[in-house]
């Protein structure tokens, strides 16, 4: 029974981790930017969902729409006005820029929302389901299902839409894409906007699962980073695989070696993978 519960916990966590990392992976893969701001954007999405519920009674799952929408616009403007200026500089420059933006946003959120932990508590979310001897909390289960759906939607967007193909083209060869008539700067901004929107959606989902505080942005960033490297940079399926692997490893590690070592095992796995399979479990060159 414990084994079933550990696997169930890992799978449920894994889906959410995948969603946390999807936007981060996209931006890293296409723009070659390690977006340190990603964790803060997730929290901003979570706060939008929190206040939407508190002020208007909007369920966090519905609040995904305004959270993702607002962050899409903010992400587009940020990329167009700020990040595009240094997009061709070395990784260190964009890393420093997003690190600075992360500090600004975190402190602005502390000033605006305070550092207190908050959580959306929707009536009836404490119910849970029994499946094969494992107890699955309703809010986590539905959150994970939604998270997986969002990642699948991203996959379909990249594969079947004009803008998706443009993003993949820019990812594979920027100069060739430009020669084919793709507006590269606009595509960059759209990619960053989609990444930000995914962060906002992930934030709205986890506002009812984890306690949120502006001081926890680095935790989400750390998870996104591990998931990306585990799954393979820029691969949408990789994000889901990486998320589930991380969820399972953390879940099993907590039982086998004690909860304080859950993250240690995850990072050990990360180092091993970087040594043996640096492209990640599902990593490939470019999008299919």
């Amino acid at each position, binding site marked *: *029974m*414990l084994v079933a*519960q*550990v696997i169930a*916990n890992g799978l*449920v*966590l894994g889906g959410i981790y995948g969603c946390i990392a999807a936007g981060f992976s996209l931006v890293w893969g296409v723009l070659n930017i390690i977006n340190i701001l990603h964790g803060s954007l997730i929290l901003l999405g979570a706060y939008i969902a929190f206040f939407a519920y508190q002020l208007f009674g909007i369920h966090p799952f519905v609040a995904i729409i305004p959270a993702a929408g607002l962050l899409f616009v903010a992400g587009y403007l940020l990329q167009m006005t700020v990040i595009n200026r240094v997009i061709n500089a070395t990784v260190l420059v964009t890393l420093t820029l997003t690190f600075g933006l992360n500090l600004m946003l975190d402190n602005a959120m*502390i000033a605006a929302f*305070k*550092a*207190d*932990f908050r*959580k959306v*508590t929707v009536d009836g979310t*404490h119910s*849970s389901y029994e499946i094969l001897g494992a*107890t699955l*909390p309703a*809010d*986590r289960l539905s959150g994970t299902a939604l998270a997986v759906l969002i990642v699948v939607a991203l996959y379909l967007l990249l594969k079947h839409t004009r803008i998706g193909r443009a993003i993949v083209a820019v990812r594979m060869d920027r100069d060739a894409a430009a020669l084919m008539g793709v507006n590269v700067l606009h595509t960059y901004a759209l990619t960053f906007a989609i990444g930000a929107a995914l962060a906002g959606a992930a934030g709205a989902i986890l506002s009812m699962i*984890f*306690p949120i*505080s502006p*001081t*926890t942005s680095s*935790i989400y960033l750390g998870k996104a980073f591990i998931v990306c490297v585990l799954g393979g940079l820029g691969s949408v399926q990789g994000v889901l695989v990486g998320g589930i692997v991380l969820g399972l490893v*953390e*879940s*099993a*590690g*907590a*039982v086998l070696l*004690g*909860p*304080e070592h*859950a*993250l240690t095992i995850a990072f050990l796995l990360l180092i091993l993978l970087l040594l043996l399979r640096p492209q990640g479990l599902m990593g490939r060159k470019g999008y299919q």
Partner: protein
Amino acid sequence: MTNNVTYTRRTLLAASLLAGITHCSLPALAADIIKIGAPLPLTGALSPEGQKLQQGYDLWTETVNASGGIRVGGRTYKVEMIYADYQSLTPRAVQLVDKLVSQDGVNFLFSPFGSGATKAASAASEKYGIPTIAGTASSAEVFDQGYKYLFGLFTPNETLTEPLADLVKQKLPGKVRIAILSRNDLFPLALSKDADKSAQKRGMEVVYSEKYAIGTLDHSSALAQIKSLNPDWLFVTGYTNDMILVRKQMSELGVNLPVVSMIIGPSYREFSEALGPLSENVLSATWWHPAVRYTGKGPFESAQAYAETFRKKYAVDPDYTNAVGSLAGTTLQLAIEKAGSIESTKVRDALTGLKVDTFFGPVAFGPTGQVNSYVPPVFQIQDKRPVVIYPAGIKTGDLKINAR
């Protein structure tokens, strides 16, 4: 040569004039104000606790200043608090203690929040020989450093775990099986060790004892394991946000145990507000509760009078962090009055030999500088309200056991 002599004379004249001015003006300034430095986590993860402590300090300062100030040998000193936000980052707290002493020239210090930060900052305040009141450090590890200027207002951790273990033992028949889940942090770990000792001393079986990392957002694996072990008593340590998360996940995973105790968390109203019915029957122990019935010296004549004054200013009931903030001020005030001076060594000596009743309980310091003079109350959330169940003299209810 003549020039040199003139120069030297002028310099001497200027120096003596300056010395004269300084000599006259400094005591005049010092006579008016006692400066107390308080590094606080006003932002960051510990900001709820930091703000509560500040409310306690502020209430004491306002009350003392409204009554004229602290009277020492015919002179009256007003109190000025100098706050510094260390953003819940312990290394920053240590730097700020240096700044408060060397730049702001504080006469006394109140420690940062919690055992870990207090211990780190205590080396700095000891170096300067500034009497320091630690409001919120209870772990013996903070006070066994041989420091002479550090005084702690919380009784040692085992004064919380011993009565808890007694109460559980009395209520549950047979061999009690206990699971301990602890935040990997100085105070929560020290408390868990004491819980382990208290349990084993009474013949209980410790079936699970693990730590979780600071910042953990998911306890489902630990709770799944605890559920499979089916203990009679779950003892969780950490801070309010950890406790809220653990209790919520317990409910989600269907972990129902006869006794669930959590320290710290249930003593704050935020715990019950965030958890609603899930806070029911959660057991806890703390160093002070508005239900205690102590009277004493200082600006607050009793626990009731303190609670009333607090409510008048903040429109909520005080909790133990608020109260210990005000107690830090009260204790320092009583020591200064006893010493008849604001000189640091004299106040330090007065603190060492202090034996006084306060609204918080009797205050007297043991050989390590940690208070050992009062019994912390044990309470349980019943019908959304904390009900004191120990000590017998002030209890308002009995321990309730959950159905499995």
